[in-house]
């Protein structure tokens, strides 16, 4: 709502894509972006494309700088273009927020544009509709969350924390009242640590919202030009990946959804493994390693020129070292001599003729559903949830650390402040606990009043 702070958001559509865009708007857009990126050319004139690299991992990217008021929002705007790996984008956004940007609310870029006179009412009405639509989506999402475990979990934690805070606040606001027995330092500290532990457990056990509601994922990996993209197109029956005979066409991980008899599976393509010291390849390689951590099953694709025991061994070890289930696929079987049978976990397919495609589909599904725990067993967390949980956890840690010792009571208002902040963060997930509610808990429990 404010227009003098700097907001940031991932502007590219959710899910993995060739290019990810993070957009910032506000007076600190450029300095904030440059905390994370190193410009490879001089500071920008009014509007320019500047090649940049991400510090410190040196992933190449680009930044578009629009100096306000000649921008969409009328403020300084920066767009960061970077390979569209979800974890990468999330990490950059989180870092921007940690550096002082604020996570943009629904329609906030557009409302800034309107406020700064950059669009007229007709457009604004469209924006209002968009905001409403976003809210409707959020509402539906919230609706589904309401019955969900995250909601229940958050209610439990905010309830426990609000009870603890009520005791602390009662100790502050009603210390002159008779008969109010307050919580001991040990109980308070124990209570806070308990909630902290709950948060930590949730964060480690939860899966990411971005993994498309935790669809099981198979990552296709193999030498350049082994035909992974064609294979994905066949498996998902869509032209998702750009197919080319030139090795190394696929630069960024791309994804497609494959329908199987057991359910949907997300297929991810990675750039081909290739020896090259080119920066871009290194960057992509790094990216692929990140992606490996997100997949449930590794599908190793080899084509005839690369079929060798050494390659198989290498790839199998890659899968094993990542602790993942793996499958080995001999692609372009139309080019191979017909043989009888292949060893376990190995399949012959031809993206061209369609040989073995249906079988591969079911094989991947079998591996995936064996490897991936069912999504429903997990609480899914999105970026906002994680940010809130992290912040709450930090506040709680500080509160718990301040309790105890001879002088701790003289800082009780600071403990209360941190507990309040933690409660506000958790409240952001499923509804704020107001000061009035805290007072209500006090009055409900204690005989307050002379």
């Amino acid at each position, binding site marked *: *709502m*404010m227009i*003098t*702070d700097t907001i940031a958001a991932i502007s590219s559509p959710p899910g993995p894509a060739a290019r990810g865009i993070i957009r910032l708007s506000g007076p600190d857009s450029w300095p904030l972006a440059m905390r994370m990126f190193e410009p490879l050319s001089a500071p920008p004139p009014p509007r320019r494309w500047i090649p940049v690299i991400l510090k410190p991992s040196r992933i190449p990217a680009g930044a578009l700088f629009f100096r306000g008021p000649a921008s969409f929002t009328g403020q300084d705007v920066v767009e960061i273009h970077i390979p569209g790996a979800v974890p990468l984008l999330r990490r950059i956004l989180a870092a921007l927020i940690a550096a002082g940007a604020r996570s943009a609310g629904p329609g906030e870029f557009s409302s800034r544009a309107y406020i700064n*006179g950059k669009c007229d009412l007709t457009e604004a009405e469209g924006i209002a509709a968009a905001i409403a639509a976003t809210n409707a989506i959020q509402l539906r999402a919230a609706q589904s969350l309401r019955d969900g475990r995250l909601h229940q979990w958050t209610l439990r934690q905010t309830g426990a924390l609000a009870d603890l805070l009520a005791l602390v606040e009662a100790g502050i606001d009603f210390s002159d009242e008779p008969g109010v027995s307050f919580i001991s330092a040990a109980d308070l500290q124990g209570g806070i640590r308990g909630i902290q532990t709950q948060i930590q457990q949730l964060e480690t056990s939860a899966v990411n919202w971005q993994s498309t509601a935790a669809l099981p994922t198979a990552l296709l990996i193999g030498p350049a030009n082994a035909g992974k993209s064609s294979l994905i197109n066949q498996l998902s029956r869509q032209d998702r990946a750009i197919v080319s005979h030139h090795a190394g066409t696929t630069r960024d991980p791309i994804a497609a959804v494959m329908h199987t008899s057991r359910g949907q599976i997300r297929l991810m393509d990675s750039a081909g493994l290739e020896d090259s010291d080119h920066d871009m390849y290194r960057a992509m390689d790094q990216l692929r390693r990140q992606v490996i951590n997100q997949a449930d099953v590794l599908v190793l694709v080899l084509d005839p020129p690369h079929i060798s025991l050494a390659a198989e061994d290498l790839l199998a070890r890659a899968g094993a070292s990542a602790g993942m289930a793996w499958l080995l696929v001999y692609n372009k079987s139309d080019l191979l001599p017909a043989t009888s049978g292949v060893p376990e976990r190995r399949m012959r397919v031809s993206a061209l003729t369609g040989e073995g495609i249906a079988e591969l589909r079911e094989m991947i599904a079998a591996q995936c559903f064996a490897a991936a725990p069912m999504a429903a067993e997990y609480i899914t967390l999105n970026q906002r949830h994680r940010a809130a949980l992290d912040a709450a956890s930090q506040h709680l840690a500080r509160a718990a650390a301040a309790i105890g010792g001879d002088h701790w009571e003289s800082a009780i208002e600071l403990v209360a402040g941190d507990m309040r902040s933690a409660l506000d963060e958790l409240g952001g997930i499923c509804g704020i606990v107001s*000061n009035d509610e805290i007072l209500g808990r006090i009055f409900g429990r204690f*005989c*307050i009043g002379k």
Partner: protein
Amino acid sequence: MPPVPNPNADPCQPLTCADPTGTFDVIVVGGGHAGVEAAWAASRMLTGRGRVAMITMDRRAIGRMSCNPAIGGLAKGQIVREIDALGGLMAHATDAAGIQFRILNRSKGPAVQSPRAQADKYRYAVAVQTLLAAHCPNLTIVEGIVDELLASPVHAAMRTNESPSNAKWTIEGVKLESGLILSAKTVILTTGTFLRGLMHTGEQKTPGGRVGEKTAAGLSASMARLGLELGRLKTGTPPRLARDSIDFSGLAPQPGDAPPVPFSYLSGTPLSPLCGSFPAQPQVDCHITYTNAAVHDLIRENLHRAPMYSGQIQSRGPRYCPSIEDKVVRFADKSQHQIFLEPESLDTDEIYCNGISTSLPADVQDRIVHSIAGMEKAKVLKWGYAVEYDFAPTHQISASLQTHAVQGLFLAGQINGTSGYEEAAGQGLMAGLNAARLVQQVSPVILSRHQAYIGVMIDDLVTKIPTEPYRMFTSRAEFRLSLRSDNADQRLTDLACSIGLATPQRAAQLAQKRQTMERITRELKHACIAGGATAWELLARPDTEIAALSAMNFIRGREICAVLRDPALLPMVEQVRIEARYQGYIDREQHAVQRLTELESKAIPRGFDASTVIELRREARDALLKFRPQTLGQASRLEGITPADLSIVLMHISSPRRKTPAAAG
């Protein structure tokens, strides 16, 4: 130092009573804690420029303490300091009449410590009356009961920018029961418990705002005719006992602080209007006793005779100030409740039984009192009672305390659904000040949530639906680390001086204090011990004693030792220490303040009509129409308003290129 009064004589002698005819700029209806601050503020603002009248049923009751003989307390003490910093009178009167001073929460951090005082209730009223008489030459006291508000309809074309949105009436004056008409540009209602006041002691019902006093019956109907909606609230008070009849020998005494700390920043200095030397009164103890199982049994047996339980009283009372019958019912597992026996005066033998507020019948009260340790033979001077009164739900006022419906009509105190002398006084001061500003045709002064508890209170009032009488708590203030009792002057006195409410001498005094604090801070940051820690860093630690610090071996800036040992500088060193301790936290608060300020700075114009904004959800539209927030900040705090609703409101109010849908289409 006010004269020692004889409570039976007329303590109101010094008050002037000029010719009550002609037009007043401000009329204050009521002489309680809201009324006297309102009259004081308006009169000070308009000295030499305008006339102020106070209408009261009884001149001698001006400044009377209706309930407990105490001022301040947690969060409330901060309000009194704020009133003082703004140039109000409550702190002066308390310091002049205080017979016991204590800082509450001493073991906790400075932000949640608050001053509290027991006051001699007669000397308190005299102090208030003396201040009004001596410093408000343009104030006229009129005895009477206001029966009717006089107002004329407003034509849309005549609405000014200062006028509240959609005001249908303009106030013109008041008519008294005697038939006397007083005309005025503005009227401030501070009716306390007197608006259709009805007292209950058991089955007995007596119309009146306080024992032995009348009620204002016609005013409610007059307000309703002007379109003001009224509700009903309830509060209660305990019995008063004769001191001589209580056996204090077995009871624990509760002494005040030695030395006592005054409320006013001026007390003990030549600038103080009443307390050049402090304390002004001898200091006394309170005593503590307890209820017991026999008392609780008595109450349970007679619950059917308690108006709150028999259904005789339907209105809501405060949860934080329950009657003894409430305590016994709701907290049945407790075997005793504490009672503070507080002297009401040095000159009379009245003792206030803090803790057994009740509306049980007199015969039951009699038995209860005599079942309590120390009170076995106590003589009851005045029975406890509950009182019901009319209030105006606060969605009807703006943050200046002016009503939406009637231009020039302001409400302050219990009529706004609050409880407490301090809450009333804080509103009274703001209403008096803003009525004077309206007369002067300048924009109202609104304190924000980060400036003052008074700001928090009024903001809560204009954004929340009341469910019980409103009392201040420190936990209501999100910026409570900044809203401390030690720095109210730094927060508010410059503002008060700039608008003419506080004297220029106060600004000078504050400037000097600031300068000294800056010098101390500088020297603390310069001085350091071997190892590099500065005196500032050492002072910020909670376990550092100032005396110990002054004895440390500083390798640089050794002059700091003299500063730390100077008793005259000690209060300022203490305050610098508070700031050092809170530094990081206050920086965080300031970040939130900045965000809040941006929302507050977005005014919602008078012409904004939420009913025409089709994108708003119904719930949001209803909330906006009911409360008519004046800033986006206020709107954001209304129940049922989401950030998306705010975006929509913002779009409709702030684009320079905004067009009507018809024009756009």
